[in-house]
């Protein structure tokens, strides 16, 4: 299972505990997480299911490539981190 963590800045708005989640892609991991934590979805993804413009998702320190479809593959023991994209000041 992959390890999924969220920026602490999200905690002010919504409970988003770290979790171990199974899945072969970033989308599968997030969908399983949202089944348990449905409110978190709208903070990370937009209306079309793409990563919000000012949110970034890293897999093992590398930003994902497919921000619209989240098809980047995930392996056992990978670390996924959802953070605010630095933009503006």
């Amino acid at each position, binding site marked *: 299972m992959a390890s999924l963590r969220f920026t602490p*800045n*999200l905690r002010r*708005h*919504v409970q988003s505990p770290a979790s171990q989640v199974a899945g072969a892609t970033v989308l599968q991991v997030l969908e399983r997480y949202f089944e348990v934590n449905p*409110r978190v979805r*709208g*903070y*990370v993804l*937009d*209306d*079309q*299911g*793409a990563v*919000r413009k*000012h*949110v970034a998702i890293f897999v093992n320190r590398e930003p994902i490539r497919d921000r619209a479809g989240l098809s980047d593959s995930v392996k056992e023991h990978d670390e996924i981190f959802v953070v*605010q*994209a630095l933009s503006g000041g």
Partner: protein
Amino acid sequence: MTDRVWVGTRKGLFQLGRDDAGRWAIVGHWFPGDPISMMLPEPGGRRLHAALDLGHFGVKMQRSEDGARTWSEAAVPAFPPKPDGLEDKDPMRGVDLPWSTQMIWALESGGPGELWCGVVPGGLFRSTDGGDSWVLARALWDDPRRRKWMGGGYDFAGIHSILVDPQDVAHVTVGVSVGGVWTTRDAGASWKLIGAGLRNVYMPPELAADPVSQDVHRLVQCAARPERLWMQHHNGIFRSDDAGENWQELNEVMPSSFGFAVAVHPDDPDTAWFVPAAKDEQRFPVDARLVVTRTRDGGRHFEVLRQGLPDEPAYDLVYRHALDVSRDGMRLAFGSTTGSFWISEDQGESWQTVSRHLPPVLCVRFEA
């Protein structure tokens, strides 16, 4: 008489209250730090809606059932999936139009349990369950002329004004920046583009009267005479006596007919207030002298009101939702991008400074 005013700002929702001596002050602050792009107090004062723009994390709706003692997250008006292969681009810049709510810009009560919500990038949503769920007004969104809407103050077009006819809640009229005036008589099943007599000077001359290219800054409706509308337009002040079908431009309004905000007396269709600014590159008060203008005769004459407003140079800009009038038509309140706030208890004759230190003010609403 209304002794409470809600103020949505860049740094949270405030409530201002009046004490027995007639002094107004901040009496409450919620969502500190979060921009409140719009709020709606439903009649009765218990149920409130607040639209938060959380930046990185998107737009959120909060609802209170107990007059702001407690809040809980409610459903956000969200767009349906964009069909694969559909081309939907901003007409001026050619960039893809996001089918995703970027800002909540208008919230109004409809019939019992009904709400209407206007957003950037141009969607209109309706709720028939008090905000538990929202449905995109598909007939308006799918109208091919909607593809001509363009951004005004924001990157994409937005619906900022929603008028629900108090005598017929299926009759709804919306103002779009930039996209003109649209109206439905069947609660959104079909829409008509209206606005004869409107005029713009920012498009090629042959498109000056094109109803879809009108930059409506704000549209308001007289509650007692719903066919009377007032508009602050990018190019001036307009009045309609037939619910927006036809418009008359009111010229030579001093010190300027440019601005964003307008309020109309709920019972007197001939009385309306504006906060003028120098058009349109400066966007602060003409000669840095903040005033409110008022007509009491349907726009034949305008008075300049300044008693109690700053004597010193003022660079306050008043956004389109940042001026409101109380239900009895006696009290007015407005706030500015500079964080200043004023209230009048005599229809604008004189003003009390409530604060010069609020965050930038985005919307102002008297308690319903």
